[in-house]
């Protein structure tokens, strides 16, 4: 090892990016100290099934674990207490219990925290491992395992379910509520065509049609204005405000908030770190923050765009970005020229249809195969005659060929 390789690494956030970074370092042969701090009491687990297979009961909490019980990751764990302060001068992190942790490099990987309707919960505070605090009984968020356990235990069958928000997690939650035999599932979003801004009108239209065929109702575009509870503290209705200012109420037994998520970075205010407008930590194209020795990965980070199509990646974050960030930071920490961050890739699953998108969904989508009615379309996005991205519904082979034909998997470097 050369002198520039840190002798110890402190990872803040025991989620996907944090786990993957530690695993990458060990696979590369790194033998320094690795310590991982986590706000939740759980070992790292996989979040995507929390709005899908975990809610329908197909996957258990055990199935979600990221570590291999047969060959567990060699790291020191400090779980159940969130990091509360970072001293950049000494690279020391203090947790809510007052314990201090120090290393030669600090990697911030605290992910994001679901937003809750205005007027509910601890305003402005990072709330982790219990985002539902302050919500009436019957209202849920989906950010962490404990949130999903609560929703899984709720009696959804026969209930009137309101799903608040028009992002991926909201649409997935609506689909699982249908699968769990809710009496009614109504989606409330400010956009008339949810996700059109992210994936284009064509693909968004195909998703909307898929939901309609499965009985999901779309309320007229409205913002959530608040939740009303009965005297016993149980959810009674969702208060809405339509685009024209008119207010309305939607009666509901269960409300699932999919209103997006804010980066869990409030605890880093005052450290001198540079943030973007959404509160994500600004990083260079290898994950370095504005503070020496401090790196950031996953949903809490906004990396400088690089590559052939240098387009900034939207806030919110996806699974593959967290893994790719970890791979790049791992290589950079070990002193090798870090690989470029691969182009974006994400997936979703709704009503049993797998949606996958690779590259940048900009420019004009061209229908390359399939159709909207059959929920099997393949769209290729083109800008100035160049293919920039692809989106498929139940088209795993085509999307994988397109993606891997353009960007190979980054290789693990040796320490």
């Amino acid at each position, binding site marked *: 090892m050369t002198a520039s390789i840190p002798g110890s690494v402190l990872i803040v956030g025991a989620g*996907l990016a944090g*786990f*993957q970074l530690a*695993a990458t370092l060990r696979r590369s042969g790194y033998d320094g100290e690795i310590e991982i701090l986590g706000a939740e009491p759980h070992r790292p687990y*996989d979040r995507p099934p929390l709005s899908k*297979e975990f809610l329908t009961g*197909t*996957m*258990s909490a055990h*199935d979600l*674990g*990221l*570590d*291999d*019980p047969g060959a567990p990751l060699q790291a020191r764990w400090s779980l159940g207490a969130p990091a509360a302060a970072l001293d950049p001068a000494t690279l020391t992190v203090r947790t809510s219990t007052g314990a201090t942790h120090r290393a030669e490099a600090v990697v911030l990987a605290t992910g994001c925290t679901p937003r809750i309707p205005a007027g509910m919960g601890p305003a402005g505070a990072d709330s982790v491992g219990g985002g539902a605090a302050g919500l009436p009984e019957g209202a849920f968020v989906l950010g962490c395992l404990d949130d999903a356990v609560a929703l899984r235990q709720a009696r959804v069958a026969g209930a009137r379910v309101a799903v608040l928000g028009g992002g991926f997690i909201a649409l997935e939650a609506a689909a699982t509520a249908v699968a769990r035999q809710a009496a009614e599932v109504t989606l409330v979003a400010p956009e008339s065509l949810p996700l059109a801004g992210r994936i284009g009108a064509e693909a968004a239209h195909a998703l909307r049609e898929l939901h309609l065929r499965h009985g999901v109702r779309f309320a007229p575009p409205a913002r959530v204005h608040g939740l009303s509870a009965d005297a016993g503290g149980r959810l009674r209705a969702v208060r809405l405000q339509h685009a024209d200012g008119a207010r309305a109420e939607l009666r509901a037994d269960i409300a699932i908030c999919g209103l997006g998520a804010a980066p869990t970075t409030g605890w880093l205010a005052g450290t001198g770190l540079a943030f973007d407008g959404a509160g994500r930590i600004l990083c260079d194209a290898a994950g370095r923050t504005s503070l020496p020795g401090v790196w950031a990965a996953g949903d809490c980070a906004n990396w400088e765009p690089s590559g052939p199509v240098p387009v900034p990646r939207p806030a919110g974050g996806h*699974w*593959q970005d967290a*893994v790719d960030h970890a791979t790049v930071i791992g290589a950079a920490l070990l002193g090798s020229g870090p690989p470029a961050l691969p182009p974006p890739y994400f*997936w979703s699953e709704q009503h049993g249809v*797998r949606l*996958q998108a690779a590259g940048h969904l900009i420019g004009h989508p061209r229908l390359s195969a399939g159709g909207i009615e059959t929920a099997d379309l393949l769209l290729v996005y083109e800008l100035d005659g160049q293919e920039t991205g692809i989106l498929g519904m139940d088209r*795993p*082979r085509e*999307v*994988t*060929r397109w993606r*891997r034909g353009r960007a*190979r*998997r980054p290789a693990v470097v040796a320490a």
Partner: protein
Amino acid sequence: MRRVCALNDLEPGEGLRIDDTSPPIAVFLTEEGTVHAIDDTCTHQDASLAAGWVEDCRVECPLHASAFSLLTGEADQPPARRPVRVHRAEVHDGEVWVEVSTAAPNLPPGVTLP
């Protein structure tokens, strides 16, 4: 051993799903010309590995990030943790023959044998 397909049915770098075994198996012809057989169903969720990307004697699942060794069946990174079974594959006179492993398959949650 049983015959599963003709060598001509395979394309270099592509997988072919063989459905008449339970669970189904995937047969691959690598760019280097070697033939391999593994369980077709990913151990993470219900995806067909025959639709995956073959490189360096591994197949990357077409859904998420795990890649399985065509030689040992091990997954290299999350989300899959358990290996797929590897079946012995041989080519005789242009026909692909496979000896299906007698080990128990590592099927993903929610997938059961018919």
